[in-house]
């Protein structure tokens, strides 16, 4: 009954039909599922990424004067480029953008390396507490952070500036390039700190001990072993953060605009939201192209570093921790410095935010103000249907984006990790590419697509979800790829060998094992989405406003109390979500 022929005798001829050579045609069957999945995921990602980039490039070559790109009066032109490149404004914007991003980066690097070194490598007291102090800032949205610092350090009635004046010190103007650098720098520090401290923690202590045993003095060890080993991780973190700095409009809009400092992201935004006149999508797209180029260089370098740094992999799971440096009499001073840092960067903005939300009008801090304490702002905010809608939209957009992104990330990561086919190289690039596209560009391009292609998405929350998924997919896969790689393939294969079809293997084995990764990824994306002003502002219409845009609008109209009341609520939402994150997976960032 066997359909096979008997074993051919050693010398005789085999009676088996010659099997066909491997080829394209025979790749059907078991692996078809995997390959269909790879194809599907690739197509979705391609649609999400190529659409916006294509739109941006095309509309930067459109003369749009009074209409939309590809509208009735639009025509092809290189005018936008000659306008942009001959304008002296462009070069000052470029200069300010670089100064802003690099300055903030240097500040964040210094702060985060200092903090990470103290917490991970010395015996400074209460390290867990200090860790929390540094990291908690992640819960404050950049927009809220910018506004709070404006209230602390503006030259008119900034609380800290009032203090400076009282003791005869000169005031610091936050609405300036140094001010923007200061705020963006300390805003970036928590995330940078997480990246750097993870790298330091994963370093195997025996590497340093081996240097010491070879006769190297501590400083030599640091110079020749510690720093070279950590360099790839540090550089990767810095480049990642560079793009974060140039892509967002929040801090530049709030602190830069009043002081007439424009960076590329705000320039893109202002061209389509001019104070007077009509939007010029063509010129905006051209500025967007500049931004794209500015982001692309470092990020391609980043990609190379990441792939190369696996050579430096010193992660061994059971890696033995390096010895801590004894600070002796500097222990408590170091602790105090860290606490002060926490007060200045976290407590002060939070307190001024709460203070301003309880004042009928903001005029800095004064004892009379205490008597003016009122909750009117909260009352009016909660009574306003706009707020209820915005809160609802924020939650819905956050949750939907997080779920869709995680689904897409899980599928892409699984294909990347589990198959060694040629498509995975493309997929690998596609999941990383959204890093290349700054938020403000994703926003602009998606607005253009759905203005030009009227499918009824414009002005709905779906367009925001679409844009957010595009932007967050890179973060999502950064969490899910290592997550899936940790799960040995044999755990899935054992499922198949037990007779379970693929969907059962996913449902009963893979997803339960990935639960912590999925939970943390969902939370992180939710937090990032709720905090994202840039995309929301680009895509917002009356029907789909979110908390971030409402906060900005109230602030823009001068209603500080309402704006701050909403900020308190938004911060409460994102900070709660952030504290639910579990230690280990936060490092995935």
């Amino acid at each position, binding site marked *: 009954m066997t359909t096979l022929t008997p074993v051919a005798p050693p010398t005789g001829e085999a009676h088996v039909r010659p099997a066909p050579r491997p080829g394209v045609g*025979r790749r059907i*069957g078991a692996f078809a599922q995997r390959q269909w999945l790879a194809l599907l995921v690739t197509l979705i990602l391609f649609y999400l990424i190529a659409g916006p980039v294509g739109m941006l490039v095309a509309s930067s070559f459109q003369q749009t004067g009074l209409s939309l790109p590809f509208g009735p009066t639009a025509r092809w032109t290189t005018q936008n480029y000659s306008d942009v490149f001959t304008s002296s404004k462009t070069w000052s914007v470029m200069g300010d953008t670089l100064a802003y991003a690099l300055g903030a980066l240097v500040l964040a690097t210094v702060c985060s390396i200092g903090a990470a070194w103290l917490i991970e490598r010395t015996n400074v007291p209460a390290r867990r507490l200090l860790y929390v102090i540094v990291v908690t800032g992640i819960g404050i949205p950049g927009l809220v952070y910018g506004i709070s610092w404006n209230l602390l350090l503006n030259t008119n009635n900034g609380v800290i500036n009032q203090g400076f004046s009282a003791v005869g010190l000169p005031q610091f103007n936050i609405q300036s390039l140094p001010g923007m650098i200061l705020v963006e720098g300390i805003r970036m520090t928590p995330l940078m700190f997480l990246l750097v401290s993870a790298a330091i923690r994963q370093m195997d202590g025996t590497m340093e001990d081996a240097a010491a045993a070879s006769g190297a003095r501590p400083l030599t060890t640091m110079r020749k072993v510690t720093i070279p080993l950590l360099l790839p991780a540090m550089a990767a973190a810095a480049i990642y953060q560079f793009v974060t700095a140039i892509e967002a409009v929040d801090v530049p809009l709030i602190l830069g605009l009043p002081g007439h400092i424009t960076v590329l992201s705000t320039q893109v935004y202002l061209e389509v939201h001019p104070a007077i006149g009509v939007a010029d999508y063509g010129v905006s797209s051209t500025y967007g192209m500049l931004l794209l180029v500015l982001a692309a260089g470092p990020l391609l370098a980043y990609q190379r570093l990441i792939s190369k740094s696996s050579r430096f992999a010193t992660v061994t799971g059971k890696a033995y921790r390096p010895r801590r440096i004894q600070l002796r009499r500097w222990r408590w001073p170091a602790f105090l410095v860290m606490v002060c840092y926490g007060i200045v960067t976290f407590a002060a903005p939070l307190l001024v935010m709460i203070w301003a939300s309880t004042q009928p009008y903001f005029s800095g801090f004064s004892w009379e103000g205490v008597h003016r304490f009122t909750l009117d702002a909260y009352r009016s905010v909660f009574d306003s249907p706009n707020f209820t809608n915005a809160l609802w939209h924020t939650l819905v957009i956050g949750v939907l984006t997080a779920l869709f992104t995680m689904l897409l990330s899980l599928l892409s990561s699984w294909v990347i990790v589990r198959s060694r086919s040629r498509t995975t190289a493309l997929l690998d690039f596609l999941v990383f590419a959204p890093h290349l596209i700054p938020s403000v560009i994703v926003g602009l391009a998606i607005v253009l697509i759905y203005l030009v292609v009227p499918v009824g998405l414009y002005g709905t929350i779906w367009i925001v979800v679409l844009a957010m998924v595009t932007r967050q997919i890179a973060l999502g896969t950064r969490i899910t790829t290592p997550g899936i790689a940790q799960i040995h393939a044999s755990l899935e294969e054992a499922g198949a060998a*037990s007779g379970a079809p693929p969907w059962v293997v996913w449902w009963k084995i893979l997803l339960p094992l990935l639960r912590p990764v999925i939970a943390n990824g969902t939370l992180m994306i939710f937090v990032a989405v709720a905090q994202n002003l840039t995309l929301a502002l680009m895509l917002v219409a009356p029907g789909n406003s979110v908390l971030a845009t409402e906060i900005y609008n109230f602030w823009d109209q001068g209603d500080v109390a309402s704006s701050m009341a909403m900020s308190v609520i938004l911060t409460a939402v994102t900070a709660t979500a952030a504290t639910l994150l579990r230690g280990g997976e936060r490092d995935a960032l």
Partner: protein
Amino acid sequence: MSAVTVRNLEHHYQSKKNRDRPQVDNVSFDVNSGEMFVLLGPSGCGKTTILRCIAGLIRPSSGEIAIDGKTVAGPTKFVPTYRRDIGLVFQDYAVWPHMTVFENVAFPLRHGSAKKLRRNEIRDQVMASLEMVKLEKYATRDATALSGGQQQRVALARALVREPAVLLLDEPLSNLDAALREQMRHELRQIQQRIRITTLFVTHDQSEALSMATRIGLMRDGVLEEVTTPRDLYQAPKSQHAASAAGAAVFYEGTVEAVEDDGMQRSARVGTPVGRLQARTLGPVQVGQTVTVAVRPEDIEVHPAPPTDRPNVLAAKITSVLFLGPSVDVRLEVAGHTMRSTRPAKGWTQVEDDSAYVELPVDRVHILPA
């Protein structure tokens, strides 16, 4: 009837470097019902690849595979793993950490069976399977709260619970320490004998292969060289590779000087660098032919004085003696060549630099084609 049939199996991993040389090259064999078939070969020779082809985790480049008479892989056919009637045990156990021992073992019944089983049927079968591997007391434990050996038993119980047509084992004992490995070897053999399950076992460990197999498939560089019984592989190897695959052996090249055939047995006299040796031969040999002579160290006897009237006795000098507990490992110099012998430690008295006489019993000296 054979439970597994493999015909002209060939597999290339899709990598540019090794396009021309398949990792599994035209392999054909049968595993008979109820037997324990062992694939033995050095690391990287393609054993795991064959096993994974049979399990359906790899689609072979060409060739046919049938399980229980049903073709599962062929030119136009490929049955995915979960529809194959197999049980699989991995080297790294692959016990699911998010389930208890019971849930792990129940999984194939709950999700792998075509027919729905009732709760108490599942419980009975799982417990029977756990009893077989002596883990019935651990049913409610978390799978991660077990030792390596216990996890391996869970994996075995999980593979057996569906009563598959064939049990596939990929070096299941290699992650265990030496003592535990020994014990598991016995248990595995007992279970297999008791339930008579057709088993394909993959290993690079010669003593594992010799002790467990009904038949051994000897592999090298992707090619299945021969299929023999453990006894034949050890006592009458057909090649130098086969001789060393079944344990340590010393080899000398030599020339056949004379052939005797008494109608019952054929033997030959071979001139080797250590001296003239009388040897039995299975295949035909001719005078003047160059051959390899193989002897196992445990077959070489060492005498303080020359025994009389025995063939194959050579004068030697002891160069080193290693005490191994039950035995001693003796190195000797014979006509300027090193020879190795393993002798029982009991009664051994000689030391380094003593002179001695080695005896190579005629029926233990194997002639292999050079």
